[in-house]
């Protein structure tokens, strides 16, 4: 693949399940890096991934991955990795044996598969535990094995479906660090599917937002960070005067309970808040930056 060539490309992709439209005329391209695909349940994320993996046929349109249609050329799946959201690990075998087997199923010779399995388990932090049966692992360790099986054959591109599902805050942080490492150190491009805005923002370079089977937004993660940032303030008195002063300065304000939510696309909003507070003679009780919930982002879209 040459630089600038998309690793994945969807062209007017549509998928119908009887009366349900899972994907509706969706077009996007994914390049080298970590791309997040955001959407609520039923938005079409998993359907898109399955079409790219060649497991589902689109109703119309095309899905090309690494220059191939994976449903017509099974060989390309040997260069793809997939970490599903749901349970998929055998309980009776050890991580070392399982990853060796999965590497062989991906087409690697047995001797290489064994070496790759040990290396992958080291890189995912499971080297010391590799001979224990997977059934005895914690949720975090199982997530690492799931990631390991997706990486063991050294794919060019890996699909991660909700990789932080079921993890505690520390485990979630470690998993996201592993995802970043997957691209930055291993050179493997990633499509991270999630419904958690924070996970995607902290990990991805680019975001695609799906809602109701359509792409509603896409772009660099920095753009979304600004788009989704707000400032929440509370004042003791003169709230109405403050709202008027802010609106006079062209700042978007919405009243939320006892406080105000102020649109914050850039740093200049803090200057406007300071000036408006002085003008309205409103004593400030609390001010904090806040991120919009994913649902609000969809509503705006």
């Amino acid at each position, binding site marked *: 693949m040459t630089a600038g060539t998309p690793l994945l490309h969807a062209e007017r992709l549509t998928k119908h399940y009887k009366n349900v439209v899972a994907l509706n005329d969706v077009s996007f391209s994914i390049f080298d890096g970590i791309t997040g695909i955001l959407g609520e349940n039923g938005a079409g994320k998993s359907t898109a991934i399955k079409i790219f993996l060649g497991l589902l046929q689109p109703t119309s349109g095309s899905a090309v991955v690494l220059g191939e249609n994976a449903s017509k050329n099974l060989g390309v799946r040997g260069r793809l990795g997939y970490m*599903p959201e749901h349970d998929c690990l055998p309980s009776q075998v050890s991580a070392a044996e399982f990853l060796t087997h999965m590497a062989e199923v991906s087409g690697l010779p047995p001797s290489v598969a064994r070496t790759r399995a040990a*290396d992958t388990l080291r890189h995912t932090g499971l080297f010391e535990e590799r001979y224990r049966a997977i059934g005895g692992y914690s949720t975090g360790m199982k997530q690492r094995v799931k990631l390991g099986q997706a990486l063991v054959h050294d794919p060019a591109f890996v699909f991660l479906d909700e990789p932080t599902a079921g993890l505690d805050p520390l485990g979630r942080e470690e998993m996201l660090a592993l995802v970043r490492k997957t691209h930055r150190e291993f050179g493997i491009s990633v499509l991270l599917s999630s419904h958690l805005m924070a996970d995607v923002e902290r990990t991805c370079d680019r975001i695609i937002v799906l809602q109701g089977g359509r792409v509603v937004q896409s772009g660099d993660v920095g753009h979304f960070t600004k788009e989704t940032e707000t400032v929440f303030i509370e004042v003791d008195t003169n709230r109405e005067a403050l709202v008027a002063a802010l609106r006079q300065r062209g700042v978007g304000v919405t009243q939320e309970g006892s406080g105000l939510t102020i649109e914050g696309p850039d740093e200049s909003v803090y200057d406007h808040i300071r000036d408006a507070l002085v003008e309205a003679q409103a004593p400030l009780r609390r001010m904090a930056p806040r991120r919009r919930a994913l649902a609000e982002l969809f509503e705006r879209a």
Partner: protein
Amino acid sequence: MTTHVADQPAQGAHAGTVFDIGYRNYTGVREGRARSRAAVFKDGLRIALGFGRGGRAKILPWLFIAVLAGIGLIMAMIVGAADRIAGPDAVQQMNLPSHDDYYGIAASLLFVFAAIVAPELLCRDKREGTINLYLVRPITGADYVLSRWAAFMVVMLFAAWLPQAILFLGLAMSDRVPMAYLQAHWLDVPRFLLAGIVMAAYATCLAMLTASFTTRRAYASVFLVGLFLITTPFTVGLAQEIEGKAGQWISMFSLLNIPLHVNDVIFGGPSEITEDAPARALGPTVLVAWYFLWTLIPGGMLWWRYRRLSP
């Protein structure tokens, strides 16, 4: 993937070694779909025989194989003992069970073995979701299930042929002139090999198809044991009551006897198990066709069910 770079030893200092354990991309050969199928096949063998699993996973398959082999050994020992005590002529008159009777004697055990072990190759992958990881790799659902089928077929062949081989060697060794026995009975070898294929293919297809309908091994095993063992007394009893053509056809539904009728065709005569079965009256062509129907249709259904499987 571990590489090391040895520095030039400085004068008077020890040579140093730097181990680079960073990630390295794989640039070697990718063997594609054939390797994938072989890997699923190999894994199927390991599951069926309990290799790479805990001790409990090994107990059942090896216990059955040992008992099946033991039957062959005991049959050979009985013939050997009778030969020494009563003489070869008396042994011939006794008409002691031999290769043609073995599958009839061991069929129940062989089918229970299939009922207990075969579901392990499919049910666990479905229950634990591992099947989804296979389907995103360079194989299809059909590749997966055919590889698993082939793995269990090999295990069944091993379980079917090993006792017959022990019996053949035992009979040869217990003969007063072993070479003369080999010359006189060498045709038993291709016969028991072929009959073993017949037994193994039938049990494998039915057991794997049943396993494909459930994620619970126990459900599949209980259903199969019931199917194999209960149909025989039920159909035999009913066939004796009804008699005539209808009785013969009812007797055909004794699932245990279906491959045994083909075994009789291969060995050129009925075994002790099937000699009273009314279905024998329908003739070898019908019996063999019936066997193929009961093997190919379950095999085809199994393939069909996995053909378009997706996670």
